[in-house]
């Protein structure tokens, strides 16, 4: 109908106009459409992506990891370094013919968040450190592989047993979300107080078993110009270890679970919580803290402690490896379970223990079979021993270190402490489950240590953090029994 040229026809739209207009419309709509569709579904086309290389499954290779395939390994290079992983990868290549690309980094989030978002994550990740991508966040986004398959596979050392049954009991808990294990917390860690065996011998002090004994040593030290308790003030995470351990040991596992389960009486109305926080505040009030410790970073305060400027410090068992360079040779580092308040439900030997350093397999990994096999081998005695040698720490594998390996004094004392504790271990999970609540309690603890708030106010603020988390509709609620 009619002309196709715009000049002749005034009434209808000419071809040129139409093209111009549609092009203009396209300029607007194309981005908008893709933007809208990104909002609506996003990433939906990734589902088909599991063309993971797969070889034959055999007894030694239950997942069918394919020879000649590649594995993309990312390791957090923190207190434990990343040498251990390089040793493993070399062995993996020798035994299975799977080469790997190794990335050792502290910037886990910076390097991996874009990859997760784009659907091209690595095959296996040690997701730790200050810049870890929170496991709860990754899990909420459905990015993590359910590790049941690995845990139910036969153990490398004893094929008649499942991998799951060769681990120290309870070590899978922190990586468990809604009943699924999505992160393998590989390193067996104990938390508590640390001191120098040498300083203790010099001063004739005995390991304090009660809080009064603990305060007595701190007071004695103070008289001699040494600080009592040091903590890593710039990161209130550490002093929370002390406060929360006192609460758990005083009130027993129920007091601990009340906090993890966001109980409306977790802090306010809990005698154990009150006793615990008042005990810590006593240290502050009596001036038994190392001077200035509230504002120091972890390395600053730990180094001061290594210079005998304080008797005790709070930390986990990565401390020894982290401080290797600054610890005097004769320091004789020793672990101490949190001393007891009167009428405590748990014995002195009870310790916060469990697994740290979460290893994850993204469920969009390119080489799933290889990643699973890699993780299965991490839980063999051979690799576990390698780890103890390279990183001065224990893994979650039961008796996972060959008896021939000589451990450093601090690590040795944690072995003894966990033997003495036996089943008397406990482990808070709110730290992994609810980052926001953890941060709020840390803020309150910092105020407490700086004497700006009193224990009563601390309890109120901690309870407010619990209540807020419980009410937050956006957060998935976890429960432990």
């Amino acid at each position, binding site marked *: 109908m009619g002309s196709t040229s715009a000049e002749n026809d005034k009434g209808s739209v000419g071809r040129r106009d139409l093209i111009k207009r549609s092009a203009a419309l396209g300029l607007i709509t194309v*981005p908008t459409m893709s933007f809208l569709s990104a909002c609506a579904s996003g990433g939906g086309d990734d589902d088909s992506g599991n063309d993971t290389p797969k070889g034959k499954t055999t007894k030694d290779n239950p997942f069918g990891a394919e020879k000649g395939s590649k594995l993309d390994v990312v390791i957090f290079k923190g207190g434990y370094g990343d040498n251990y992983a390089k040793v493993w990868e070399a062995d993996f290549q020798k035994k299975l013919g799977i080469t790997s690309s190794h990335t050792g980094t502290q910037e886990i989030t910076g390097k991996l968040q874009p990859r997760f978002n784009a659907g091209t994550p690595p095959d296996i990740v040690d997701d730790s450190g200050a810049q870890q*991508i929170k496991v709860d*966040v990754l899990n909420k986004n459905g990015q993590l592989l359910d590790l049941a398959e690995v845990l139910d596979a036969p153990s490398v050392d004893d094929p008649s047993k499942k991998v799951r049954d060769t681990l120290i009991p309870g070590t899978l808990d922190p990586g468990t979300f809604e009943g699924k294990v999505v992160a393998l917390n590989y390193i067996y860690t104990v938390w508590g107080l640390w001191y120098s065996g040498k300083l203790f011998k010099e001063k004739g002090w005995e390991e304090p078993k009660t809080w009064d004994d603990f305060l007595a040593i701190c007071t004695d030290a103070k008289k001699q110009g040494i600080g009592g308790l040091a903590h890593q003030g710039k990161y209130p*995470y550490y002093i929370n270890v002390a406060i929360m351990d006192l609460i758990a040991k005083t009130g027993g596992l129920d007091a601990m679970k009340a906090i993890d389960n966001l109980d409306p009486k977790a802090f306010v109305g809990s005698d154990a919580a009150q006793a615990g926080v008042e005990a810590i505040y006593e240290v502050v009030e009596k001036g038994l803290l190392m001077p200035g410790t509230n504002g120091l970073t972890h390395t600053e305060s730990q180094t001061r402690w290594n210079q005998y400027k304080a008797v005790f410090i709070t930390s986990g068992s990565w401390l020894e490896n982290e401080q290797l360079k600054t610890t005097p040779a004769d320091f004789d580092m020793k672990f101490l379970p949190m001393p007891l308040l009167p009428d405590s439900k748990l014995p002195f030997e009870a310790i916060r223990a469990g697994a740290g350093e979460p290893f994850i397999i993204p469920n969009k990994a390119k080489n799933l079979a290889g990643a699973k096999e890699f993780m299965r081998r991490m839980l063999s005695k051979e690799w576990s021993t390698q780890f103890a040698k390279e990183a001065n720490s224990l893994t979650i594998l039961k008796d996972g270190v060959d008896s021939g390996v000589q451990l450093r004094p601090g690590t040795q004392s944690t072995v003894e402490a966990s033997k003495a504790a036996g089943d008397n271990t406990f482990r808070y999970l709110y730290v992994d489950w609810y980052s926001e609540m953890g941060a709020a309690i840390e*803020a309150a603890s910092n105020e407490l240590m700086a004497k700006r708030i009193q224990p009563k106010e601390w309890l109120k603020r901690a309870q407010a953090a619990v209540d807020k988390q419980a009410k937050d509709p956006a957060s998935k609620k976890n429960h432990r029994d």
Partner: protein
Amino acid sequence: MRKGQHRFVAGFLFVPVALYLIFVIWPYIQTFGYSLTDWKGQSQTFKFVGLDNYKALFDDDVFMQAIWHNILFLIFIPAITILLALFFAFMLNAGGRSRAGGVSGVAGSSFYKIVYFFPQVLSLAIVAVLFNAVYRSDGGGLLNGVLIKLGLVDAQNPMEWLNEPKLVLWMLMIAVVWHGVGFYLVLFSAAMQSIPKDIYEAALIDGAGRNQSFFRITLPLLWESVQTAWVYLGIVAMDMFVLVSSMTQNMGAYGGGPDHKSDVMSTVMMRNFQYFGKSGYACAMGVVMLLLTLVLSVVMLRATRRDRVEF
């Protein structure tokens, strides 16, 4: 224009504009889109939640407090930096006793210029490390060390400079001003040097003192440089991410302590974005930050507008 030139010019115009659209404007639009969702930051699955994030923002005490901290920075950082820079620049260029009838700076001014400029060549991250050592909370800190030696601070109870709610913002400000003054000093110096010497000489003959020649001559003729400095420093004050996140007490992550007393919008945003996994919510904060920065830039440019003095 000759034939073909149009295309040439258009090419030069089109490419940068396209790049700008793709890499600057488009992410802003995306951020706005994300801010309407409950995106958690680690995958592309999320739900549309409308303006919920924005509503939640206004109930978020931490973010509201952070805005106030930014505003405080916005008032003081530009004012202090510019005043100091102007004073030093004037002293270096026209503050000297008039020797042989000319206008000159104080003795040794070319040396001072280098010294003043020096902090500017350091990156903010290094400034943070330096000032962490200055403010260190035990006797090992420079400030505490000196004050303890002088007997002004008790060694058993040293000042925790960055852990004092009332001090922390000022401590950060000192670091920023220290870092910035040199640059603006050089900027103002350059502008001052372009002011014809005859004007000063004429003023001198008329009997003007230092103060008069500064307020009557230097400042009016420098106004445009001052205005530029104000806008740049305003942007610094709206950011402050590096110093806050690497110098102050941790509130989970990205500094902000003690008790959020040093939190600025960018640190609260990053904490929500990465540490709490509330990325959609953080995007809403980003949009608010963008709007505030835009509004403030416009207001500042308007407020400082003056007639241009020709010389």
